[in-house]
């Protein structure tokens, strides 16, 4: 299993770190060089962490754990009106991004109210494209209990956040409800941290499920294969997003055929992945388990 961490440091002997990652069979997920500052998201086999730590120490950089890296999370609010957006939607989104996740935001068409709250089939399908969902509710217990029933139908791991600190709901975290200001005080940061770690736990369960029935190839490996054939264009913002069991590739319709024919080991991508158009953005590649496809190498 891969561990994803972030390196922050200078450019001094930076190439040595890149080479080491390649040597131990790791991947570079994201790289950002700004003059003398370097930020690098890297994935490497868990057992090689000591090696990486030693190298980073030698380079004088910082190594930060990214518990949510390699996942795409959608933050959902009942609407995009003044009542629910922008606070605390952006605070949650930003905090999750700091923990390594790629985040999307979504306002429901008819999610407001108690009796009248609804979720459409299309909204549900868009949510299910992501690895996890964070539902942001308000401050009234009675309305939240009612609304939670609707979101029960969503088939991906989810976390409900809302105002009341004590509410008996599954996957619930209090302290982040309807707000009129930003979350910038210490105790509010603690709440956001608790949210991130709870989400981490939920995602770890999902990771374990994926591990029990291993995928034909790691999404990180497939990302690298795609990048070999279709190098990212300059200035393009995250053309490939990694999921726990697949990828979201932002490409045009005419490029899909090229993706299908990419070869990894003995098999083509079309043989080891289910490729379908996303309702939201780009194309989704769902990697099939090795038990279905047979060995790739």
């Amino acid at each position, binding site marked *: 299993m891969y561990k994803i961490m972030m390196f922050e440091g200078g450019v001094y002997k930076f190439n040595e770190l890149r080479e080491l990652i390649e040597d131990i069979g790791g991947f570079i997920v994201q790289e950002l060089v700004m003059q003398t500052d370097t930020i690098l998201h890297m994935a490497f086999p868990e057992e090689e962490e000591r090696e990486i730590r030693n190298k980073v120490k030698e380079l004088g950089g910082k190594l930060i754990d990214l518990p949510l890296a390699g996942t795409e999370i959608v933050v959902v609010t*009942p*609407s995009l*009106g*003044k*009542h*629910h957006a922008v606070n605390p939607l952006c605070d949650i989104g930003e905090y999750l991004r700091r923990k390594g996740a790629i985040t999307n935001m979504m306002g429901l068409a008819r999610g*407001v*109210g*108690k*009796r*009248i*709250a609804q979720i459409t089939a299309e909204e549900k399908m868009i949510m299910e494209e992501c690895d996890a969902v964070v539902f942001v509710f*308000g*401050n*009234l*217990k*009675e*309305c939240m209990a009612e609304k939670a029933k609707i979101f029960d139908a969503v088939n991906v791991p989810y976390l409900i956040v809302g*105002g*009341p*600190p004590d509410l008996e709901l599954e996957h619930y975290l209090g302290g982040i*409800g*309807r707000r*009129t*200001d930003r979350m910038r005080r210490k105790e509010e940061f603690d709440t956001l941290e608790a949210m991130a770690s709870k989400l981490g736990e939920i995602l770890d369960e999902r990771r374990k499920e994926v591990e029990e029935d291993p995928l034909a190839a790691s999404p990180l490996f497939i990302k690298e294969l795609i990048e070999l054939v279709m190098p990212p264009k300059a200035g393009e913002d995250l053309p490939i997003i990694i999921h726990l069991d697949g990828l979201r590739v932002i490409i045009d319709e005419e490029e899909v055929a090229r993706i299908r024919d990419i070869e990894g080991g003995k098999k083509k991508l079309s043989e080891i992945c289910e490729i379908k158009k996303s309702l939201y953005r780009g194309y989704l590649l769902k990697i099939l388990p090795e038990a279905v496809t047979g060995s790739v190498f």
Partner: protein
Amino acid sequence: MEVKVEGGDDFANTSYGKICQDTFRDLGVRTSIDHTYLYIDPKEPVFLISVKIGRVASPLKVRDVTQPEIDKLKITDEKFAPKILAVLWDKYGARVHQIGRLEIGLKVDEREAEAVKELVVYDPREDLIPRILDGIDRILPEGARVRYPIPSPRRITIIASENPIGEEWKKKAEELVRVLGDDV
């Protein structure tokens, strides 16, 4: 502005109290409101808000937001620049021209200069009610779209729910407005 919230649990009451304070402050009407009463019944769900309008700030005149110089006016508060220009253009037409971001050229004799100073740029009374209504709209939960206003002097009272509002609630609200009207 005093805020009283009743009907919900402790957490809901405190948080809605804060929402009332912050929303009215953001809209700049907090000083013009004497008292806000909010009743929450999340079980029904029905919400009732009653805002008592207090003293409103006096109208802003040209002399409050500009400094006279020779043949021109210097704007001291840029926020009102478009309004000052509109008022002056309206009154003096082509004699007014904008020199810079904070300078307006206007050639007037002494007598006229006094009259210019007394022109009203902005009267907070003009849009007080729309701003309070906007605030109320932001405070009441978005789902409570069915609204019923209760008319009374110097007070804005609105019942809101996602279900049709029954006679019983209307009567309750009228009674409450009567009691509140005497008290605060």
